[in-house]
């Protein structure tokens, strides 16, 4: 079976996080004449990395509560699309490329949360992460930015054995 990897080694800041790729790795965004924008490159979030980086949950991306109903998710998605969709931004006379990244992020959040199965899976992982982050905090104060990988559930299990 062929499955898509949703991460983007061409665009994402995750290259730094993972520490195995050059931070100055060419960002294709910035090569394009119309898309040169530092904020543009930095707003690109590896879709699956919300958990790993802990910046914001998909709920936060859409600006909704974790208990949000399916209708609320759809409404929030549409409301945000009305603001950040490249068509809207271009029609307002602004540049649309940066907003494409923002829209991609919002759409990614929407497509995960609007699918009951994917949402349940995401919620579980999100819960695990929060719980684990909390317990790590009480156990040791060593959690820092350098330890992203150790936030992953599997790592935590090995920590527990130790």
């Amino acid at each position: 079976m062929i499955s898509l990897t949703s991460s983007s080694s061409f665009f994402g800041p995750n290259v730094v996080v993972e520490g195995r790729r050059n931070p100055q790795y060419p960002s294709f965004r910035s090569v394009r004449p119309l898309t040169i924008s530092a904020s543009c490159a930095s707003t690109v979030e590896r879709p699956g990395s919300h958990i790993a980086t802990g910046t914001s949950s998909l709920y936060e991306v859409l600006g909704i509560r974790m208990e949000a109903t399916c209708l609320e998710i759809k409404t929030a998605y549409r409301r945000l699309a009305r603001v950040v969709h490249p068509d809207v931004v271009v029609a307002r006379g602004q540049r649309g490329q940066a907003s494409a990244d923002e829209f991609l992020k919002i759409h990614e959040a929407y497509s995960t949360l609007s699918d009951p199965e994917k949402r349940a899976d995401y919620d579980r992982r999100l819960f695990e992460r929060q719980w684990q982050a909390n317990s790590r905090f009480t156990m040791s104060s060593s959690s820092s930015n350098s330890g992203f990988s150790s936030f992953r559930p599997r790592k935590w299990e090995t920590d527990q054995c130790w």
Partner: protein
Amino acid sequence: MAEQAYTVASDSENTGEEKSSSTLPEIAIGIDIGTSQCSVAVWNGSQVELLKNTRNQKMMRSYVTYKDDIPSGGVSNQLSNEHEMLSGAAIFNMKRLVGRVDTDPVVHACKSLPFLVQTLDIGVRPFIAALVNNAWRSTTPEEVMAIFLVELRAMAELQLKRPIRHVVLTIPVSFGRFQLTRIERACAMAGLHVLRLMPEPTAVALLYAQQQQQTTHDNMGSGSEKIALIFNMGAGYTDVAVTATAGGVSQIRALAGSAIGGEDLLQNMMHYLLPNADTLFSSHSINEIKAMGLLRVATQDAIHKLSTQTSVPINLDLGNGSKINKVLHRQEFEEVNRKVFEKCETLVTQCLHDAKVEIEDVNDVIVVGGCSYIPKVKDLVTSACKRKELYKGMNPLEAAVCGAALEGAVASGISDPFGNLDLLTIQIATLAIGIRADGGNFIPIIPRNTTMPARKEMTFTTAHDNQTEALIVVYEGEGQKVEENHLLGYFKIVGIPPAPKGAPEISVCMDVDASNVLRVFAGVVQLGSYQPAMPFMEVRMPTVDDGHGWCAEALNRAYGSTLDLVSVQKKI
């Protein structure tokens, strides 16, 4: 008759950059160039208005007649009768020919038209010619469309009393990217800049979204989500869309389309009435063309009549010894075209399936297009959707062009104080885009019906030990094998570090922006290295020009599988 203003404003196929940078005080017009008819509409400040030609027509025939040296199209020209269009001098049905190669079955079906369509069946563009002073004068689909667009533009400029530069055009769902570049080329030849190419049913969806928004405004309602199925069957193409609309935002959930339409119904009937039609008309002599024209007009007329009556008499003398005297019944018409109607049903069910929508959840079923007058077409959609009633709020012939005009106004940044332009369409990819890998297989990277803008990445690896180069061949389509799909372009990745097969990591990323511009990125991912040895590639597609049917074969012959790639399963 005035000579055509035939200006070539731009030879650039890369119109995407301009889309995002230009500020647009002028309102873009909407154009629907149908296989058989076309129309123009514009937002007039408070609503969408269809423009009329000097003969007060809103719907104009899509054809160009070549007489002496001056071609003239159906916008300005008035034919004395239908037969004049079928004398060999008029070229029509260009939407079925544009951007297609001579191995395409749709092109072959066009060979029975009363002008010259010659094929060599080698994957190059077909030879098209009109009969002028007893000689076949060659032309191209783009040229015919451009002449036509020049007339439409002149008509609009006359009425709106301003220069027209920006347009939104409707296109069939099944059009590939190469065909879209041909349409853009025709527009550029006519001095028009394409702001957006909109799949026809999504234009209808936009009109529906606006109508729903007006209704909820009136009711002060909360604007709950409404799901509509749109079935659009014209002369050349049949398209289906499922759209979810709320608060002026229409989310296109799925699209399906095929190059079947009224033209197929007509040709099937012509062959039914005159079984040896193909051999009779094979040499395109002047008498044959005349007979072909007579048959075409009579058959078309009969089909039109069968929409309102159950039988129609046909009495026709083709002048070459063959006579047709027959009463044609509606059941016969439906039986002869059974396959076409079955295909229509398949499109509806496929679209519903792809949209993951249950038929019970569909609020409205909209049937538009020239063929929507055919009882069987209405029946098949209503029964496929388990409905009794179809949506009534739209003119079936004008819906698409009205949607295009709305999009033109929205994309031009026009706002309406009553909120009638607070609209947004979230489009999806009509065809999958991917590359050749795993030995001649098509590996989609952006699947069909993916929301745009879209960006997807996949990892591949080498097929041979110490393979240092890899060929990235980009295709578009639905077939599992690359031969079934359309070639968009190709490039080579070099400098892969020598390693056992399967070890190097080659990343291919595809990015489609909201203006539907495709960029392909590819390169070697260097593990543990802080200095990427080889720059990545960024290629805007399509890069192939005419003769792309040939191109894929040549690539295969020259390289075979030596520069193959293998897809890598995601490590979970």
